């Protein structure tokens, strides 16, 4: 049982040498093991900033608040320590790292997170199985990390990493964007497997309700103006679907 708490989180985006802008203006949210929280909101509301700030992206700086995993402050940890503590960020725009093969990267990553190197044969079998589940051609293992991948291929590989690293909490930043119906289904199944097999707590950041038909949320939050503007059950998503975000955009402005 893991408790992931975001308390009074404020963060700036660093624009230039001396330029910064506050994006997060006091975010509070608690995610327990097995729970799925959909974070929905208009573009520019700060949803992605929330994800990146928690992961420790260098372009963002947290100015106030804390993020705790089972009482331990994630913000005191290095970026890689956060991952090893069980926090995972599936990125909206996964980074291309030329020359580093996917298989080498995944093995390094799994070794770091699990604390020991998996046996080569065993790992290769595990990787092949996980790739097959996500309909990823085995040829991708030899390619550079995200190098020349299409948007959909990158998203599948984010979920591949999710399934291999088995985090306690996953923040999925618009994992559904740019996916066609089939890919969305495949990716959603991957998320659901992680939820079932190890009771992953999930923050599902999305602009659209489409993915919520495949990954059922327990809670839905509306994110606007850098904070959670309203929270509710799954039916809040239906209201947003029919009414849009207009009400919150106005309220935020």
């Amino acid at each position, binding site marked *: 049982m893991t408790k992931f708490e975001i308390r009074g989180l404020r963060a700036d985006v660093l624009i230039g040498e001396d330029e910064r802008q506050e994006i997060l203006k006091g975010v509070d949210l608690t995610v327990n093991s097995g729970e799925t929280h959909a974070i929905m909101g208009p573009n520019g509301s700060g949803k992605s900033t929330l994800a990146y700030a928690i992961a420790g992206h*260098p372009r963002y700086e947290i100015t106030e608040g804390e993020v705790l995993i089972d009482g331990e402050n994630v913000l005191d940890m*290095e970026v*890689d320590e956060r*991952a090893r503590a069980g926090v995972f*960020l599936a990125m909206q725009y996964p980074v291309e*790292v030329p*020359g580093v093969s996917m298989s*080498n*990267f995944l093995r390094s990553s799994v070794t770091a997170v699990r604390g020991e190197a998996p046996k080569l044969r065993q790992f290769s079998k595990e990787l092949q199985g996980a790739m097959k589940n996500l309909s990823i051609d085995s040829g991708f293992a030899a390619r550079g*990390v995200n190098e020349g991948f299409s948007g959909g291929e990158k998203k599948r590989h984010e979920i591949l990493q999710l399934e291999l690293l088995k985090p306690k909490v996953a923040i999925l930043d618009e994992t559904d964007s740019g996916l066609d119906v089939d890919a969305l289904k495949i990716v959603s199944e991957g998320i659901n497997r992680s939820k079932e097999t190890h009771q992953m707590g999930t923050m599902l950041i999305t602009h659209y309700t489409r993915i919520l038909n495949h990954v059922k949320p327990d809670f839905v939050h509306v994110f606007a103006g850098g904070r959670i503007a309203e929270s509710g059950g799954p039916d809040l998503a239906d209201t947003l679907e029919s009414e849009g975000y207009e009400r919150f955009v106005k309220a935020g402005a």
Partner: protein
Amino acid sequence: MTSPSTEPKAHSHGLGEIPFSKLATHGSFDVNDFPVPNGREEEWRFTPLRRLKGLHDFKGEADGVDRLDVDAPEGVTVEKVGRDDERLRTAGLPADRVTAQAHSAFEEATVLTVAKGTALERPVTIERQAQGGTRFDQYLIELEPMAEAVVVLKQTGTGVRAGNLDLHVGEGARLTLVSVQDWEQDAVDVTQHNAQVEKDGTFKSIVVTLGGDLVRLSPKVAYKDRGANAELHGLYFTGDGQHHEHRSLIDHNLSSTRSRVEYKGALSGKDAHAVWIGDVIIGEGTSGTDSYELNRNLQLTDDTRVDSVPNLEIFTGEVEGAGHASASGRLDDIHLFYLRSRGIPEEEARRLVIRGYFLELINRIPIEELRDEIMGKVEQKLASHE
């Protein structure tokens, strides 16, 4: 945000400055045709003359000794020849005083010939260990028509060395040269490669410069007929106080010739200095030239210095392709963030990214053991700078 910071960027060229013409670069076999450089000359302005240990104004005695081991498969003739051998004056002129000094002063040259139509079944390996002192050298590698060979020159040890390596690639022949400068810390090496490529011949060179106090390597390519092709690749890892200078000159003096130049380096540590000069000339009246050159530098610490100068001179309107790119920068923090966000500790993430940066280049070496050996040396150097 996802592009590495050393990715070449498009840029415009001002019209205000008229570049120094490489066509004015003269050559001679005779050292006395070159004045003693003072460091302000275009071809010497990046080189710290005092660290040449007298090579640019040589007065002493060439007392250096090299141990040379040549391992050549069947089909290769290895000869030691005297100064009067005519073949030593066919591959092009030394372009500066130091390489002319070497040509004026060498006593015996090593000549490797691969017989017509012979495709070597394994690479030729030349292990050269410098055992101190100053020494001038002349080498010639000759591929007769339709021959195919990979030649690996591994250079270790210490001393002050200057020389010319002439490469003659016959009609339809294919030569791959891998030259590894793995000198000890105090070595000085000033070398010119003179490649001449005949009709439909292909010359590939892969230069790996890791060691030495000062290495100045000038690969020069000239074409003897149409369809000739040259690819120059280079990798350098320049550490504390080291000076690594690579100056390529490709002279597209004839129509329908091709060239690629790709040099990538990493620098780490106080006063590490890398210089890359990439000269490409596309001659008057030629057509169908296809050329591209690129230099990238990864500055791993702030106290390093890079001078990167691509220089294209085009004297014809009939060009198929002519491009150049140069970029220097630090490790991309977004690359590191991505790897670290998957739990990989910072040091290992850095190692992975740097390894990745060099991988494509190293993979051009056609011998697996040598690829591993060089990647191992790069990692060793990397580790010693962390």
